[in-house]
């Protein structure tokens, strides 16, 4: 039964990707990208990758179609061009890469076999010892925040770089690099009363759910990234309905940019803490004498740093994109 769901989802994924090759309009492609993200997230659930499904749903089906939409809106629909001659480069390159990939899959261990090398060398230690060494049930969070914490620091830096890069590219002249919006009068004819009322009821629960996900990361699926994305999507929902100037008054752009830098520093400083007392970088055993509670404190603080950075960077990117769009309108 599990295999059936897995195969059907894969077929749907390939069908959506095929449709994306064929479909011409940008709005239609955005919709299909959103469907593709949802399918991908469901596939990850059937593959027992719970945290990854969480993130892919929040990012792949939530944030990236939204950014695509803002771009499509800012550039206007962009008239679909007639398909040019099929480029010869594609006809040559794609089969060559496909052949190389197929060669690659020939000697791979069969799918799902428990004695594949990947499951017998490094991973068993995480599964067996993380219970005593770190003491939290969600092994993915313990590997993410403790065993390979430097990877996560690198990743937080990637999302911070994306924020800096978007601001550097989209910073409209005259602003100190932040999307301080010029006042756009709320001249939308219909104020969407129903949407605003319902959203006003839902947004507090979404923010509460984001905090739950942030601090529930040790026991079930969740953690800094997912919480950050959900927090940012609540702000984006508020921004969509009440317009950019209102949301900029609630969550000021300068503060959000400052927070994205502070989040990375929180993560970095917790690492440097260990160096001051001679332990290697990002070694949490300095926070408390009992090693397990030290790990808990370390992971909690680190996940908080991740959550702050991800939430503020996605909000910064939304402001930069929405600001482009609103100026085009005024």
């Amino acid at each position, binding site marked *: 039964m599990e*295999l059936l769901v897995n*195969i059907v989802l*894969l*077929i749907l*994924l*390939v069908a959506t*990707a095929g449709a*994306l*090759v064929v479909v011409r309009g940008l709005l239609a*492609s955005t919709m299909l*990208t959103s469907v*593709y*993200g949802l399918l991908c997230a469901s596939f990850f659930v059937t*593959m*027992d*990758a*719970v945290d*990854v499904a969480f*993130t892919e749903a929040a*990012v792949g089906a939530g944030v*990236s179609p939204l950014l*695509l939409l803002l771009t499509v809106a*800012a*550039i206007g629909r*962009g008239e679909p*061009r007639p398909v040019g001659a099929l480029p010869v*480069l594609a006809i040559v390159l*794609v089969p060559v*890469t*496909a052949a190389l*990939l197929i060669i690659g*899959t020939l000697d*791979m261990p*069969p*799918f*799902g*076999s*428990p004695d*594949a090398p990947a*499951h017998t060398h*490094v991973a068993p230690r*995480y*599964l067996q010892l*993380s219970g005593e060494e770190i003491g939290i*049930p969600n*092994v993915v969070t313990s*590997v*993410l925040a403790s065993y390979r914490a430097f*990877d996560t620091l*690198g*990743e937080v830096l*990637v*999302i911070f770089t*994306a924020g800096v890069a*978007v601001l550097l*590219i*989209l910073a409209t002249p005259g602003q100190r690099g932040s999307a301080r919006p010029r006042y756009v009068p709320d001249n939308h004819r219909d104020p969407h009363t129903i949407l605003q009322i319902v959203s006003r009821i839902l947004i507090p629960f979404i923010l509460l759910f984001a905090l739950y996900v942030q601090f529930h990361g040790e026991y079930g*699926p969740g953690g800094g990234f997912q919480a950050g994305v959900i927090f940012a999507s609540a702000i984006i929902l508020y921004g969509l309905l009440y317009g950019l100037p209102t949301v900029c008054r609630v969550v000021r752009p300068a503060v959000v940019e400052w927070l994205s830098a502070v989040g990375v520093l929180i993560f970095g400083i917790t690492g440097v803490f260990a160096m001051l007392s001679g332990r290697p970088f990002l070694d949490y055993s300095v926070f408390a004498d009992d090693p397990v509670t030290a790990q808990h404190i370390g992971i909690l603080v680190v996940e908080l740093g991740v959550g702050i950075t991800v939430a503020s960077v996605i909000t910064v*990117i939304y402001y930069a*994109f929405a600001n482009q769009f609103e100026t085009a309108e005024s």
Partner: protein
Amino acid sequence: MDVLSYFNYWAVVVLMMLGFFIVIARANLVKKLIGLNIFQTSVFILYISAGKVIGGSAPILSDDVTLYSNPLPHVLILTAIVVGIATTSVGLALVIRIHAAYGSVNQNDILKQDQQC
């Protein structure tokens, strides 16, 4: 059972090639980014299906479960998803600026404008 055991990997290959084709064949810059997104997502599927153990459950320690799926690919893919969204957002920011500067998002028009001036 042999065909099924490699089905995941064949699907990954097909998805990768569809994404790669969109990136190369389509002239619209936004479509290129969507193709890039598909190309990256198919690599995630490759990693995650490599981490799956048939009969194993999600890597959340609970006493009644003995066989778990491999948690390491999940950690790697959490990082890769964030890298994917970072690249997409920077790419889309560039597309907006290119549209503002050239008035079009079609690569052929842009190259024509470049050759003229």
